[in-house]
């Protein structure tokens, strides 16, 4: 006990790691190992088409991470995320294909452009309250639709444009990492991006910036009077979310090699909302789990329409037996997921996990109480 007191008061004596801190380090190393194994092991395990789907999952997770910060942390319900993803996608497709920009330069440009546009949107948004903001963000989707369709020299109009730009940095081709196929490489690249952004989002959540945003979400006026520059943080959250969205757009374009205005429409917006709601809106892990579950499930069902049990339930063309056409089913599935999760576990999968953890912890406590009780009886 005495040593502890001394180490606290005397800065020259470094505190010895307590058991708690040591277990924290062990946990961190373990987590890093798991992530690394998943990141590099998965490409060896799955076929290319599955890896392509998983890479798309990563892009959707990335876009959703922007919403984690904007909607989850700062409480600003925005539907406009696909607009910023679209801006990132078209910008990189145009400059990458037409002007042969290096992908590293593209990344920087796209992130900066997304951030600036997001900050501009934030400037308008700070004047609006919750519901108006949601509606005005729908307006942004409408503007995107117009812009992407109309600015034909850049976007190719409604038929879209090629996005087959080179992913080479120096000698390293990100689409063909040493010893890997295109799908394997892009899987690694996209999930690495998710990992980095998720770490940033996690850091924000635990630090001053994130606390300020959550304070705004919880009680905007109190946050203001406590000394938080609400305007600045809202604009910052918009800028960051949009920058992340634009980065997701670059990867989306790189994956799909072709983009059209339909990729960034209202349905995509709802898909993103479903992802963050299902996963858990205010945790980075929620965005990742939500993307895997929602987008993964949608892709899985569409590629298994002809096998049991979907062959009986879903029809894949006119005259085919089934309760529902496959396309309608995907709409149905997204809607139903939203309803079920909101009613049953508004914190999403992450909340479910937390609840299970609390349940287990309460067993622990119960067990300890029983043990204490027994000890008392014996003594």
């Amino acid at each position: 006990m005495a040593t502890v007191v001394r180490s606290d008061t005397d800065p020259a004596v470094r505190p010895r790691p307590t058991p708690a801190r040591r277990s924290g380090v062990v946990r961190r190393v373990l987590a890093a190992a798991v992530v690394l194994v998943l990141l590099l092991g998965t490409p060896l395990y799955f076929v290319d088409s599955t890896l392509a789907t998983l890479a798309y999952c990563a892009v959707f997770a990335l876009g959703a991470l922007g919403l984690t910060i904007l909607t989850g942390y700062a409480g600003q319900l925005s539907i406009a995320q696909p607009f910023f993803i679209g801006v990132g996608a078209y910008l990189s497709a145009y400059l990458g294909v037409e002007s042969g920009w290096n992908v590293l330069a593209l990344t920087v440009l796209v992130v900066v452009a997304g951030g600036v546009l997001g900050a501009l949107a934030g400037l308008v948004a700070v004047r609006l309250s919750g519901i108006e903001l949601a509606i005005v963000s729908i307006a942004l989707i409408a503007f995107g639709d117009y812009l992407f369709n109309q600015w034909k020299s850049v976007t190719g109009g409604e038929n879209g444009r090629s996005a087959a730009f080179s992913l080479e940095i120096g000698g390293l081709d990100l689409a063909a990492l040493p010893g890997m196929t295109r799908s394997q490489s892009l899987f690694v690249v996209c999930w690495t991006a998710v990992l980095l952004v998720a770490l940033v989002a996690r850091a924000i959540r635990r630090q001053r910036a994130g606390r300020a945003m959550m304070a705004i979400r919880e009680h905007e006026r109190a946050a203001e009077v406590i000394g938080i520059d609400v305007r600045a943080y809202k604009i910052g959250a918009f800028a960051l979310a949009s920058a992340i969205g634009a980065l997701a757009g670059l990867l989306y374009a790189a994956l799909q090699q072709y983009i059209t205005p339909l990729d960034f429409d209202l349905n995509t917006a709802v898909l993103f909302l479903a992802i963050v709601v299902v996963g858990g809106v205010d945790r980075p892990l929620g965005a990742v789990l939500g993307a895997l579950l929602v987008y993964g499930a949608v892709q899985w069902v569409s590629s298994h329409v002809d096998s049991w049990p979907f062959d009986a339930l879903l029809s894949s063309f006119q005259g085919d037996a089934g309760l529902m056409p496959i396309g309608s089913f995907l709409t149905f599935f997204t809607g139903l997921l939203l309803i079920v999760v909101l009613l049953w576990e508004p914190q999403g999968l992450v909340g479910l996990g937390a609840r299970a953890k609390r349940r287990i912890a309460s067993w622990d406590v119960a067990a300890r109480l029983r043990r204490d009780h027994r000890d008392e009886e014996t003594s």
Partner: protein
Amino acid sequence: MSVAPSRGKLHIEGLTVAFGGVKVLDDVSLTADAGEVLAIIGPNGAGKTTLFNTITGVYAPQSGTVAFDGESLVGRRPSSIVRLGVARTFQNVALFGSMSVWDNLLVGCHHRMRSGIATSVFAPWRATREDRALTAELDELLSTFGLDDVRSSLVSDLPHGINKRVELVRAVAMRPRLLLLDEPTAGLNTLETAEFAEHLQVARRRLDVTIALIEHDMPFVLSSADRIHVLNFGRTVTSGPPAEVAADPRVIEAYLGTTEVAGR
């Protein structure tokens, strides 16, 4: 070391605040000297909370001046007023519900830190270090005010009485030199009120602070205030030491129209 006469002093002169032509505050002047506890009393709708909102920059006055430390507060944004050392609590507790007590205190220290979004993105360790630097101080605050047990509880899970205290501690963590307390004992029972009075004394000893408080609980006011300022319909009724004000017939008339005030 000579101290400027305006240091720690809240000075309001001729303050008028109106909404849509209705004057909520009408030519109000008051002063709270450094280290003093000034109680502001008056019936509901007298403009007390509006006064606080105007001091903290939520509302802009039609005319008049508000100065603290000799600096004018009019026209400043709330966040910049906080940086001048003004902290407040709220009539209906305004904590951040789904955050822990600990995080609420850290939010209270917001203006004392520098790291922002960019820090978290580019140098997250610097932000972590900044948080760590406050750990000892906040730990000590928690134990001083008997909140060790609820350190990581969510505020929304805690009872009202505890939350009133958390809010006070959050205000203390802001290291204010002017502390505005809006009905600090509202919703507390007698025991809790007594406890709160004690905690307020602790806070006073820790901080070199001027306090203005809005309160309906007269025994609490009479025991903790150095001076009382009475508002009614947005106008000053009177101002003076507790005993004097409590005996003023105009106050008795304005305040619920009973003699209860003086009787206690």
